[in-house]
């Protein structure tokens, strides 16, 4: 009789295994296919030579990933079917067993069903470890690590499914909501990062969006498990999540009203929460989308209205389990009022977020560039920092002017971007991102860009010592194979000195020039190091020097490389920019066009080359035909830059 009243009912466990045991078996077979089978198939010495594997995740990681995000959710759905089917629920809940006891038995058995396949696979790998020389690739510790990480993720995802299942009365909703729940942290970060810049002037959305947000969702974090091992803190957070999700699920289950089975959401209070959360997210999505694609307050507002309406309707459809729903206008009005209040609240800038600029004496150094990527791109060395007081002050004043002068609503994409990071002496960072029209801020930009510190930081040539230079190659930009090479000691020294001087004296206007560089220069120094720079057309003294050294012919494209050119007015040539175009097509069209002219005179070609812009969008288009590679390069002129003879002939 004692066993009858015990907590664990053998028959309940039996029925769990009978109904969901297959999930565990499928998982085992899948993992077996992904890992041990792969090991066995690649076990010959010959094959092992080509293996690049240092942990268990790297065997068919995509498969493992798919299993880890689908099996736990599927298990939670199938396991708790008895809470989602009315008759099943009535049967289970009429039994003389406490709900708490039923939950423990189901939820824990589910965990065991997830653990068993993983442990078995680990065991099989351990058996194969010695015979197949797996120690050449990874230690036994990696196997244990794999078990630990896989189980942490699986169980968190599974228990998320269980907890969500307790809130809903439909299996399908349980599955979908589980994924939404697991992706929500990341989704919200992305949506907020996209939308906040519309309201918080200077908010660097991209900076926050790209700062390791993937850790906030187990689903996304798992995608990196073949490359990194989670930290102790992460593992601890997952353990805490496991315990709290388990007891959260239990508490919700104890309060669950069984009569609400087959409702999308069991607890009435969750219905408005769900509805407004969906509305809020789709609103941010709509606004963010149109804000990024089109910009401007009209588009953003339209995006918000559109997104909110769709989200609200979709949420109603889920709750009412039909697509033919009556929309509760009252709720929508309440929502609109709250959003309007929130919008007004942002206008006050209560935290002084928009106005805050650190004092000069607080600032350790400042990063100043035109894009977040110039700051974050770790392939390069440390990003550019300005430390001199004068420059820090310049950036501050520039920043001040932006805050005073810019219309925050004009933060549309397509304008020039300014990215500023103040690193303060107390270790904090203040990050801002603005869209401005660079021309309006020329005085500031000129001073910053022309400052020695900025030039030193942005030009690699300053690291080159003229004496240590071993070789300089000058590769012309254009479809030619020629290039100029300097190896003579004396010439090298002179060249480096002239180039340094050119960079030194280059003005802001020249640096901002959009002309295509004549050539790309690589300077080899200190044995293995290489400095890179471009030869801007404004470096006239360098050109003269090259001519003196008779290197000019090889250093840039000239009329000798070109057999003839074809020029035409852009409006006469029908180029479909939207659908894409190839140079060959454009060239053919230009050649066929009656209104185009052919230029064969070398001198005319030379002067055509000099003034042309390296892109195709201009008032006049010119195509140069390169004999050597039988290919063409297409450039353009504006009304101002077009050579007179072309203009005249095209009249």
């Amino acid at each position, binding site marked *: 009789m004692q066993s009858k*009243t015990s907590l664990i009912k053998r028959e309940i466990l039996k029925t769990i295994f009978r109904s969901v045991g297959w999930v565990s078996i499928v998982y085992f077979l899948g993992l077996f296919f992904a890992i041990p089978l792969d090991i066995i198939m690649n076990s010959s010495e010959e094959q092992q030579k080509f293996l690049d594997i240092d942990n268990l995740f790297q065997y068919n990681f995509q498969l493992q990933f798919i299993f880890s995000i689908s099996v736990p959710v599927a298990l939670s759905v199938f396991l708790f079917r008895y809470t989602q089917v009315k008759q099943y629920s009535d049967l289970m809940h*009429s039994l003389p067993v406490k709900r708490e006891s039923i939950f423990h038995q189901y939820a824990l058995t589910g965990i065991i069903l997830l653990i068993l396949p993983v442990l078995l696979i680990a065991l099989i790998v351990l058996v194969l470890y010695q015979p197949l020389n797996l120690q050449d690739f990874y230690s036994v510790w990696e196997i244990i690590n794999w078990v630990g990480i896989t189980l942490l993720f699986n169980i968190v995802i599974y228990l998320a499914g269980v907890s969500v299942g307790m809130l809903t009365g439909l299996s399908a909703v349980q599955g979908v909501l589980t994924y939404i729940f697991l992706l929500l942290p990341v989704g919200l970060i992305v949506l907020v990062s996209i939308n906040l810049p519309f309201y918080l002037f200077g908010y660097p959305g991209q900076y926050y969006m790209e700062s390791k947000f993937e850790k906030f969702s187990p689903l996304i974090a798992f995608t990196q498990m073949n490359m990194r091992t989670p930290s102790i803190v992460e593992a601890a957070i997952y353990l805490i999540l496991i315990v709290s999700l388990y007891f959260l699920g239990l508490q919700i289950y104890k309060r669950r009203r*069984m009569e609400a089975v087959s409702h999308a959401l069991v607890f009435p209070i969750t219905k408005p929460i769900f509805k407004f959360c969906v509305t809020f997210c789709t609103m941010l999505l709509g606004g963010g989308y149109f804000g990024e694609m089109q910009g401007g307050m009209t588009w953003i507002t339209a995006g918000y209205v559109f997104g909110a309406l769709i989200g609200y309707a979709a949420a109603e459809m889920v709750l009412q389990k039909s697509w033919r729903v009556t929309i509760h206008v009252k709720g929508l009005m309440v929502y609109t009022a709250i959003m309007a209040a929130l919008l007004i609240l942002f206008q006050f800038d209560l935290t002084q977020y928009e106005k805050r600029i650190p004092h000069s004496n607080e600032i350790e150094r400042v990063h100043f560039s035109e894009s977040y990527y110039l700051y974050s791109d770790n392939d390069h060395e440390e990003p550019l920092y300005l430390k001199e007081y004068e420059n820090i002050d310049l950036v501050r004043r520039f920043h001040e002017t932006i805050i005073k002068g810019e219309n925050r609503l004009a933060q549309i994409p397509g304008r020039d971007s300014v990215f500023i990071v103040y690193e303060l002496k107390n270790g904090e960072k203040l990050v801002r991102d603005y869209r401005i029209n660079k021309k309006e801020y020329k005085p500031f930009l000129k001073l910053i860009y022309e400052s020695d510190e900025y030039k030193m930081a942005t030009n690699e040539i300053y690291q080159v010592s003229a004496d240590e230079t071993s070789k300089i190659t000058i590769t012309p930009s254009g479809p030619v194979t020629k290039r100029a090479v300097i190896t003579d000691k004396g010439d090298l020294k002179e060249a480096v000195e002239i180039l340094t001087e050119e960079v030194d004296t280059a003005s802001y206007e020249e640096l901002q020039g959009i002309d295509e560089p004549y050539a790309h220069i690589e300077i080899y120094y200190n044995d293995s190091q290489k400095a890179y720079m471009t030869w801007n057309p404004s470096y006239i003294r360098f050109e003269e020097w090259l001519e003196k050294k008779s290197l000019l012919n090889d250093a840039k494209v000239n009329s000798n490389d070109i057999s003839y050119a074809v020029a035409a007015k852009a409006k006469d040539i029908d180029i479909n920019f939207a659908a894409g175009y190839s140079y060959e097509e454009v060239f053919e069209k230009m050649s066929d066009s009656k209104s185009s002219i052919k230029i064969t005179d070398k001198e005319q070609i030379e002067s055509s080359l000099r003034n042309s812009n390296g892109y195709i969008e201009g008032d006049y288009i010119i195509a140069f035909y390169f004999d050597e590679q039988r290919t063409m390069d297409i450039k353009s002129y504006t009304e101002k830059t077009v050579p007179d003879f072309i203009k005249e002939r095209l009249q």
Partner: protein
Amino acid sequence: MIKIRNVRKSLEEMDAVENICIEVNKGSIYGLLGSNGAGKTTLLKLLAGIYAEDEGSIAIDGQPVFENPQMKDKIFFIQDHPYFLPQYTVKQMAQFYKNIYSRWDEERFEELAAIFEIDIHKKIHRFSKGIQRQAAFILALSARPEVLILDEPMDGLDPVMRKKVKSLLIDEVAEREMTILISSHNLREVEDLCDFIGIMHNGRMILEKDLDDLKTDTHKIQVAFKGPVPALFDPLKILHKEKRGSIMICIVKGDAKEISSYVEQFKPVIFDMLPLTLEEIFIYEMGDIGYAVQNILD
């Protein structure tokens, strides 16, 4: 034994059951009647401990049912559409219940399986609806419950099977004082089974009756007199009166002996006391709540 006091339960913000009070004595069979949507199933599920009551109290032998395994161990609930664990055979279902219900009687199970001639090794969902219902009865009775709760149990059973089930239930009640609550939308289906009936309409109990009382209490009499009809009926409690020629037909409430001795005083030419069907009693008893009653009589 079963005491339901002022119970209210709302489903989807509507009161499914409101202010219900029922008392059922040990060893009696209580029939819960009402049309569809009257709240019978909700009340039974409250009693089976599946739903929690919003207000009021439900107690068996003074103990609450909800989340009380000791009490639920003595209760067995058969749903309106019997449901079994997926893919289970009768035998497996029996094993399941044997593990769950402490008073499970394996001998009784085998005995019942033999009586109903059911193949216990066949998966239940392959059986027809009627056989599934029989299987549910076999399993329920084998669990030896003190309280058996049946939601529309006669649906889908043929008359022979109905009779078999009814006699089994009556035996069980007689033998070990099992208490049965049975819901139905049809009075005729359960009138020969129940001691008490309660009629529900729109979540409320509109009538509760002891059937034995009702039957011994209400009479149909035919009388005829020579000459004018004396004012003899005034002291009698008459539910219905009609005249066919010189014969008067009355439905009268009261003790049969008292009525006949009273009528005899007036020397009627004809005097007959006829038995009434339950159906007739209800029709005459409750003119007002007609709709609810009409439905359960269909």
